[in-house]
């Protein structure tokens, strides 16, 4: 693996780019690994990377049924933030933001994490009080947060609608300055390249068709490329977690929904940060290429169909036009849907599956991209040590039995 640097870009420029090698190998799967990770999205690849980096476990394979980052990792709106309410969530997501902050250097791959800030607007005086509560909770949890009044919101994001006739007029906002956006493909590719360089096998077009369970323990997987034995198995398959659970005979409290997103034709820079308006259920940012990236809440119909539909499109885009009237004439370029794994409390599931030797990283719902580094970090810890990290312990599957739910749905202000 060649080291990427300004110098290597310069040299390759002189050689017309002929010296760039492949960023990772495409090895044939071995018959056995110490750790097999199912799912080659961001979380699975990050798990492989942190296994090699933090735990010295190099005999690792990531199995991906399609191509790397072809599921939700390539279908999100790239927002990275930790503006959560409960201490457990704040600790989890802020660890992820911290890992993102050093990730480009860590991976030697530019993931384009741009901390341009995110505002969650408040649209009435009672909402301002709830915003102050959210802001206080974030500060108490050690996460940066600031209250903005309407004038400060206007300075932060002048393109927003400040007309008094707006359906939900803007009174202020909570700003997290360290939040921002990243480049989702680069996150997947960067983790894949670094895990591969450390000795991990990244295997694409290899679909897991069954889990091998012997004496109550998961000892491997059957795949479209044959049987692969494993010391332990990690599952990071997002919207298809329930399909895997049926193979393994364990139960999950997950419902799969479509989450849609939209990107417009590229235009000159107009949006500074990420803006969420909770009563509209819509948020937007602008990518480095100039496209307006627009997202909303979940679809209303449980689904495994990876495509968009009209009712949600109408809801999200009409809200966007009310939030940014000057951008209403901008044309959409693409519109897509990903299958997200939604839990009853909108918090992830990290921990043992109930089947010995099989560990889960799922249930991120609509918020998986921002959590890729921490999801990989914690699943790697579980797979290497067999026990919880202090950050992941509250998010075990057992919380649905003990009742210690971490109900983040309300606090984040959007169905997520």
């Amino acid at each position: 693996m060649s080291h990427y640097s300004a110098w290597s870009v310069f040299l390759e420029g002189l050689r017309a780019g002929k010296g760039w090698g492949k960023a990772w190998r495409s090895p044939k799967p071995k018959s056995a690994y110490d750790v097999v990770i199912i799912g080659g999205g961001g979380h699975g690849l990050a798990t492989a990377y942190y296994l090699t980096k933090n735990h010295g476990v190099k005999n690792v394979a990531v199995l991906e049924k399609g191509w790397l980052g072809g599921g939700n990792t390539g279908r999100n709106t790239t927002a990275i933030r930790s503006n959560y309410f409960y201490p457990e969530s704040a600790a989890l997501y802020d660890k992820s933001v911290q890992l993102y902050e050093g990730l480009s250097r860590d991976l030697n791959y530019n993931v384009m994490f741009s901390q341009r800030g995110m505002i969650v607007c408040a649209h009435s005086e009672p909402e301002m009080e709830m915003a102050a509560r959210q802001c206080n909770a974030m500060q108490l949890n050690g996460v940066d947060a600031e209250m903005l009044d309407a004038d400060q919101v206007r300075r932060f994001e002048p393109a927003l609608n400040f007309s008094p006739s707006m359906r939900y007029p803007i009174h202020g906002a909570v700003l997290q300055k360290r939040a921002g956006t990243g480049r989702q493909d680069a996150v997947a590719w960067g983790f894949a390249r670094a895990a591969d360089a450390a000795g991990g096998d990244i295997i694409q077009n290899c679909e897991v068709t069954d889990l091998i369970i012997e004496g109550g323990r998961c000892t491997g997987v059957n795949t479209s490329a044959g049987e692969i034995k494993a010391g332990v198995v990690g599952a990071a398959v997002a919207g298809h977690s329930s399909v895997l659970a049926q193979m393994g005979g364990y139960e999950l409290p997950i419902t799969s929904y479509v989450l849609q997103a939209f990107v417009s034709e590229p235009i000159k820079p107009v949006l500074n940060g990420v803006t969420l308006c909770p009563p509209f259920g819509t948020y937007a940012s602008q990518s480095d290429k100039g496209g307006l990236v627009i997202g909303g809440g979940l679809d209303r119909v449980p689904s495994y169909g990876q495509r968009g539909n009209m009712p949600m499109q109408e809801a999200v885009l009409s809200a966007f036009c009310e939030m940014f009237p000057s951008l209403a004439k901008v044309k959409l370029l693409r519109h897509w849907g990903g299958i997200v794994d939604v839990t009853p409390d909108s918090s992830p599931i990290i921990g043992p599956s109930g089947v010995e030797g099989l560990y889960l990283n799922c249930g991120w719902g609509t918020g998986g991209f921002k959590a890729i580094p921490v999801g990989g970090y914690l699943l790697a810890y579980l797979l290497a040590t067999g026990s919880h990290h202090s950050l992941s312990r509250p998010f075990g599957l057992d919380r649905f039995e003990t009742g210690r739910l971490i109900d983040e749905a309300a606090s984040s202000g959007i169905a997520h």
Partner: protein
Amino acid sequence: MQIFPCPFCGDRNETEFHFAGELGNVRPDTTGDISAAEWSTYLFTQRNEKGAVHEVWMHTPCAELFVLERDSVSMEVTGSRALRETAK
């Protein structure tokens, strides 16, 4: 825009319908002892099947609950019946 069939009102726009839950999730008998695991299964566990699903939906204008049979990948609706009717 997809059309969903209400067994009482006929074909209507999908936005008139509300997903209520999976069919066959029976509340445990609370007059007896129930373990935390059983109660958790009733409250939270989902089959969340990929393919043919049987679900309880509400048609919000008439407020009737009914059984909707559909495919969770293709979204094709294959049947709709009142809750008291048995499956054909």
